[in-house]
């Protein structure tokens, strides 16, 4: 039966090529816009490539300290002394590391050509939370971080820039005029992994006076994603521990924030602040989705209704021969779904084009960065494109299909539906 519907739907599409084209284009456009948002969201949150543990990674990016006597407060990134002894020995997370990223001037020892490179200072667990392929050398361990040895790991492209094909491991480089030894080279990763990406990595302890610098972020990786409440409890305990030893001070860390929440809230100094931002961001997406779905749905409804009008006789005949209401309903919806799916496929492909062209805006990565294939095509994406198609189909063909199924046989046979 569905095969027949399918044949009929294709025949109808062919019969009125102009209107079919308009319907498919309208659907494709809507799907393109919606999928561009969904896919770029998915790229920001999916656990793959260099960040395979996003689903169980939590961040503590900022803190706020209130002075209850002066009634003043200070917000900013976490200072080292509010990390060490408070957040440094959390029990629940499997791995944890602090990290900071900044641009630094780097050159090869004895050469005058200076490059600006993104440097990440990290602890040893960084290499376990994120996934890198080492071309040469190995990540540093606890010992190196303890001793603060000046070792650096370079990305492949940074190595090319600095050494131009010569052997790099074992050589010396100057990072902001401080000598470091290159101990490893890793394969480049895409900049969509913005938590892991950098050009070179050094142990955070290798910086002089590292205790006096702030920490951009504390990254915690749980054994599994049900540990969040337990980690949260530990972090709140750390706050209490700090408050107990500092009179008139109330410290609150922002987080632990889930990866997806952190992407939505961006810079926020407190959890309440972040919650508001997340709520607003969710409402915004909901509103945008609504506009993106409703406008084409109204459009297509109008078209479908006109089309239904022309098929009044056919539906009348089918009903006269005993077709039930729901059969007509399902048939109309099914026929329309074929248009929707056709539009969906075109729309999805177009959305990839849009993301590729506008990655700077949609993903916040430089124009020349690449996006791995498995970030674009994944089960959640494919599932959501089908879902969006079905939803758009229901919205756009629901009313026409219902009307068609309710037609009075006599009226439709005499073409008198007014």
């Amino acid at each position, binding site marked *: 039966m569905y095969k027949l519907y399918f044949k009929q739907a294709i025949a109808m599409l062919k019969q009125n090529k102009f209107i079919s084209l308009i319907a498919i284009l309208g659907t494709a*456009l809507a799907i393109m*816009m919606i999928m561009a948002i969904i896919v770029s969201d998915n790229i920001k949150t999916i656990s793959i490539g260099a960040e395979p543990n996003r689903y169980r990674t939590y961040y503590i990016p900022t803190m706020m300290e209130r002075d209850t006597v002066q009634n003043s407060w200070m917000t900013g990134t976490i200072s080292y002394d509010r990390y060490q002894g408070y957040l440094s020995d959390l029990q629940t997370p499997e791995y944890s590391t602090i990290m900071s990223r900044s641009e630094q001037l780097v050159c090869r020892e004895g050469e005058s050509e200076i490059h600006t490179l993104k440097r990440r200072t990290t602890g040893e667990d960084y290499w376990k939370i994120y996934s890198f392929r080492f071309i040469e050398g190995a990540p540093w361990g606890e010992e190196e971080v303890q001793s603060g040895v000046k070792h650096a790991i370079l990305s492949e492209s940074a190595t090319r820039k600095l050494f131009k094909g010569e052997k790099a491991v074992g050589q010396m480089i100057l990072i902001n005029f401080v000598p470091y030894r290159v101990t490893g080279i890793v394969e480049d990763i895409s900049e969509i992994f913005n938590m892991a990406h950098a050009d070179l990595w050094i142990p955070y302890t290798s910086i002089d006076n590292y205790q006096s610098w702030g920490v951009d972020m504390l990254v915690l990786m749980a054994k599994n994603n049900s540990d969040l409440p337990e980690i949260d409890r530990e972090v709140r305990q750390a706050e209490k521990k700090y408050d107990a030893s500092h009179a008139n001070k109330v410290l609150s860390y922002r987080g632990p924030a889930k990866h997806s929440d952190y992407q939505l809230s961006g810079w926020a100094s407190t959890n309440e602040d972040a919650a508001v931002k997340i709520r607003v961001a969710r*409402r915004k997406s909901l509103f945008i989705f609504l506009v993106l779905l409703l*406008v084409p749905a*109204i459009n297509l409804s*109008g078209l479908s209704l*006109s089309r239904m009008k022309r098929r009044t006789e056919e539906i009348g005949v089918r009903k006269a021969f005993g077709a039930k209401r729901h059969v007509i309903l399902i048939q109309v919806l099914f026929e329309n779904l074929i248009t929707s799916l056709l539009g969906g496929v075109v729309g999805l492909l177009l959305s990839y084009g849009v993301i590729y062209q506008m990655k700077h805006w949609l993903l916040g990565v430089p124009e020349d960065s690449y996006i791995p294939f498995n970030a674009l095509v994944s089960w959640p994406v494919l599932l959501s494109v089908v879902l969006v198609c079905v939803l758009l189909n229901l919205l756009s063909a629901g009313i026409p299909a219902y009307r068609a199924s309710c037609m009075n046989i006599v009226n439709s046979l005499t073409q008198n539906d007014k």
Partner: protein
Amino acid sequence: MIRHILKIIWNERKANGWIIVEFIVVFCVLWFCCDYMSFIVKSNHEPLGFDIDHTYEIRMSKKTGMEPKEEEAIDHYSLVQTFIRRVKQYPGVESVSFSNSAAPYLRSSSSGTMVSLPDSIHVQTRIRYVSSEFFDVFKIKLEQGRIFNWEDNAESKNVIVSGNRNGHFEYTAENNKNVEVSGKGKGSSERTEAGDKKQELELSKIRALYNDHMKEEYPIVGIVNPTKEDPYAPYLGGVYYPLGRDRTSLNSQIVVRITPHADKDFPERFTREMRQQLNLDPYFLASVVSLQSLKKDVLAYSGITGNLNSIYAITTFLVINIFLGIIGTFWYRVQARRNEIGTRISMGATRKDVQRMLFGETLLLLFIASFVAVNICLNIAQTDFLEAIGLPKANREQIGMGIEQDVINYFVTYFFLAIISLLAVWYPTRQASRVAPAEALREE
């Protein structure tokens, strides 16, 4: 004619309902896009107060890992003098400025409260520390008085001020509870949203500014043109202090203005040729960046670029949709009304007449929709709906947009949609007017 068309619209009300609903939704969204775009365009049209064409920031970095003793021994001021001498010798460099929290787009600003003398009114102002060449680098115009001379005067207390859009300082009664505010010497006052009165103080009536913290008086020697931090920020009153010797170092903001013809590849050329000369131990040349490119970063960071991109995207989307919707609906309508059109032509209506009727139908539909939409928009604008869902909203107060903006929004949106609709309806009408009357009538 209009009554006739209205009758036709009423007869086709079922199909027209969809089009009207779509028009209403699209009209509302485009209305707010238009509102925001007007804000952007108007803001862009107003001068920044700083001229940033052909200006570059020179960033110097300091070597890390120095001993505290070495650190103390650095003579920052003489390094600065050497720096200025060497940079000025470079061909094309017109002027070099040193400043702290002053230059636009360098993401550093400070503000504070000053007391105006003789009125003793507390005013909130931007605070900038600058060398005298700052005004040359950014081509800030002197409106009254003179510019202080930095080299001789670096320790003196002379300051220069700038006002808001009217060239006044602003203050609120909130900050001046203990000051009796007389009507004399005050400019116009306006009510702000919060309800506390924002009042204005004429700059020329102020003799000096008094800093409560430092317990010091700063005579005003000059007034310069109003400035804003970026095109979409408000004009704020500001105070320019001379950048003191003790505050001047190669860590300050350093901006150079170059002649237009030296602008080509300036950063690369300058970096290459000056790297050696600007190796002023412990400082070294880190980078040279044009302020235009820094402006781009700031606007992207503040979300303006993203907002504009979203507006372009959603406008394009809606326009294409309304285009497809109208083409589709009228195409069907023309098909369904072949007999009617045939009759009209056989009764002596010209093709133009038929076309005109369909065009009129479209415009009238849009007008009916716009009437409903405008009421929705005006009501939404009164609420916090846009803020609640995080959509960009025009800051009407800041730019002085009033009710006339609603009229502009209406006409711009209406004409924009009208053009799109007429383009869309053109293809079906062409088909309609080609109906051969005999054929159409025979179909019956």
